[in-house]
């Protein structure tokens, strides 16, 4: 069937508005009487709050309200509901919010933050995941420093038998790779504007990439539900803020047009704080993070340490791949457990390998929480496995093209989770790359297809 518009290079729906500056982002929403929000953040990576006195800040002219953990109806959120909106006692990272101020202007809000009296008992942080994994390491969280996948401290993927594969191999190639932490560096930082309505409802202008995801979380934090179920009882019953589904109509998340995300806005950063201050003051409250806050305290791609041990045949076929990957998750689970899962499912790369064993660890340290970033856990494994492919080729004296063609998934083969590969196209994608790059492939590689091995396409 001939398609009339799908597949055509039509102009961007919102292109003209974007390039002419007409698009209205959250920071462009101006509501008279809006208060400016600033946060008191922890100066230390780990410690206990021993004293917190906000009275001098609250007494300042121009300050409309100050919130602390005591003002948060349910002070635990996230995929695993564990992250506090504001620290009650245990500080787990430098920059963690402890209190927030709403004032008539930015100068007053900043001044008020300095007048909050904070006593901290500083503790020894653990910043290196390898240290955090040791049994006697200081605890980032009371539950332990490693996320538990069921009974195991790692996600395990078992496909075939790697030991048998290593015995069949002509050569073992083992290397370690490191992918650093990365910042999304999206242009629009975290911004939130919460506007209370006379009805008691709240509209939050948000930069969220995931409106409904955050709607559920905010309903859980604010306990905006018709009946009065106490937070602890509710959390134990459902196990997740997302499952809370009462009170959606009490909150309106207004957004949908986001000034860059790359995963930076899949976690709540500011909306819960502005919502609480708006409910407390009865006035619109806006929090716009500075670039420095964004760099230092927002979520980011956590660092990865990956070890790969491959068993290979002389012709370049990989017959066994064993991987151990350690994700530095920072101080809270956020989306890290999912990031590690995705990493493990795809860790062995776009190749059919008959024997695969993957261990993926999600380790807590006293850094700000890492979370999602474009490519989730696949970006680091693509780096590791693709450099590894060239190392194998170099050791065997093979061409880097050939080793990829030899191992590329074909239709009907199984991934390490036992998933059948359909719509396979790596062979064709490589052939088209070679053609575009002016690389003249040998005739046997040019003739390959993604059809099942031994079958014509």
């Amino acid at each position, binding site marked *: 069937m001939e398609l009339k518009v799908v597949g055509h290079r039509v102009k961007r729906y919102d292109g003209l508005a974007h390039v002419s500056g007409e698009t209205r982002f959250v920071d462009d929403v101006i509501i008279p009487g809006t208060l400016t929000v600033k946060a008191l953040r922890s100066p230390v990576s780990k410690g206990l709050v021993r004293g917190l006195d906000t009275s001098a800040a609250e007494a300042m002219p121009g300050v409309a309200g100050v919130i602390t953990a005591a003002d948060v109806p349910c002070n635990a959120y996230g995929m695993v509901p564990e992250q506090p909106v504001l620290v009650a006692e245990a500080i787990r990272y430098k920059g963690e919010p402890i209190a927030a101020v709403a004032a008539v202007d930015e100068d007053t809000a900043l001044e008020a933050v300095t007048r909050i009296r904070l006593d901290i008992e500083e503790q020894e942080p653990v910043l290196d995941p390898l240290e955090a994994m040791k049994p006697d390491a200081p605890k980032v969280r009371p539950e332990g420093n490693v996320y538990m996948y069921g*009974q195991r401290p790692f996600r395990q993927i*078992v496909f075939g038998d790697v030991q048998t594969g290593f015995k069949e191999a002509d050569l073992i190639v083992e290397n*370690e790779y*490191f992918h*650093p932490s990365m910042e999304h560096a999206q242009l629009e930082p975290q911004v939130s504007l919460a506007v209370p309505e006379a009805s008691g409802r709240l509209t939050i202008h948000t930069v969220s990439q995931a409106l409904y995801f955050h709607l559920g979380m905010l309903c859980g934090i604010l306990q905006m539900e018709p009946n009065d179920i106490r937070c602890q009882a509710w959390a134990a019953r459902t196990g997740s803020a997302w499952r809370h589904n009462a009170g959606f109509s009490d909150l309106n998340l207004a957004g949908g047009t986001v000034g860059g995300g*790359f995963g930076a806005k899949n976690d709540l950063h500011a909306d819960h704080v502005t919502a609480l201050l708006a409910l407390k003051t009865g006035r619109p409250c806006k929090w716009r993070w500075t670039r420095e806050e964004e*760099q230092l305290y927002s979520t980011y791609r956590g660092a990865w340490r990956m070890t790969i041990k491959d068993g290979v045949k002389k012709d370049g076929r990989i017959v066994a791949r064993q991987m151990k990957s350690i994700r530095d998750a920072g101080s809270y689970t956020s989306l890290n457990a999912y990031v590690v899962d995705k990493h493990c*499912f795809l860790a062995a790369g776009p190749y059919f390998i008959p024997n695969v064993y993957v261990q993926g660890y999600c380790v807590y340290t006293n850094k700000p929480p890492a979370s999602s970033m474009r490519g989730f856990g696949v970006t680091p494994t693509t780096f590791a496995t693709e450099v590894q492919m060239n190392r194998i080729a170099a050791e065997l004296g093979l061409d880097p093209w050939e080793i990829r063609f030899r191992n590329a998934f074909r239709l009907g083969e199984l991934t390490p989770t036992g998933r059948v590969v359909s719509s396979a196209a790596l062979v064709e994608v490589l052939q088209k790359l070679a053609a575009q*790059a002016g690389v003249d492939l040998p005739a046997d590689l040019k003739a390959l297809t993604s059809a099942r091995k031994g079958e014509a396409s």
Partner: protein
Amino acid sequence: MKKKGIGLAAGFYPSGMSGGGDSSQALVKIQPDGSAVLTVGSCDIGQGCKTVLAQMAAEVLGLDYRLVKVVNSSTDLCPLSMGTFASRVTYVDGNAVILAAQDAKRILLEAAAGLLEAAPEDLVLAEGRISVKGSPDKTKTIGEVAGAATFGMRKLIVGLGHYMRDPSHPDPETGACDPFATLAWSATLAEVEVDTETGQVDLLRLVTSYDVGRAINPLLAEGQIQGGAAMGVGAAFSEDLHPYYPSLDFQPTNLGDYAIPTSLDVPDVESVIHECPSSHGPFGAKGIGEMTANCPAPAIVNAIYDAVGVWIHELPASPERVLRALEEQGKS
């Protein structure tokens, strides 16, 4: 001395959340004049989903793309979406939009059947008109049908769509599961020039090849490829949030110290799009938003080896790190 080298990398990436279970809904309302309003809960984070979703709705409804308005502005107005991440919007929302547009089309054809005195299955909808098969003179515009349905038949023409892949949970022992909706494939070639005295690496050429299932809008697919390439170049050469890892010391606090590539750092990206349709993707499409950032860095690192014979095992491949590798591996 300056030495040139070529490097290769390949990859694959799923569309939608790994493990499934992530919903998107869509709602297509046909206005009394025959134009359409498409409502979805996913955000446009710059990637252009409003454009491709409007294209899909327009295709199903036989409408001019410019007559489809897209609303995604709030949870009060818009139906459920898990969000804009996991390369999921083109695939998951796209399928929901097709279902919603087909639903609206069914209502339109039922209304037209009465007006044109023909069975709905004997009608064709194309280029803004509904006509009786074999009788091209028995025809009405979508606007005429929508107006008659609204004011004459007291109808509200709204099509609804909900798409979700069933959840698949990994086996706790083996990890066995069916986590992916569909897989897209990629390969990248990089050519670099390494200055062996300074460790400076210049990226001379970046060629990419992507399977996108079907490019709903090739212009926007190329935009994703260009943007992802820039992010990959940043990962390869300059971006490190914790330069003294695992310590937090000297963490960059601004975009001067945390150097993302500028247009001067990224060569013109040559991109080839391959279309190997997914049997369940919308019009065959797969998501490519994220995978475009994955291959450039390993391709560049492999090109550095090809040029000067040293392996870089830690990103970024900064001049300091390349120079150290040259010294340690005895190639300088």
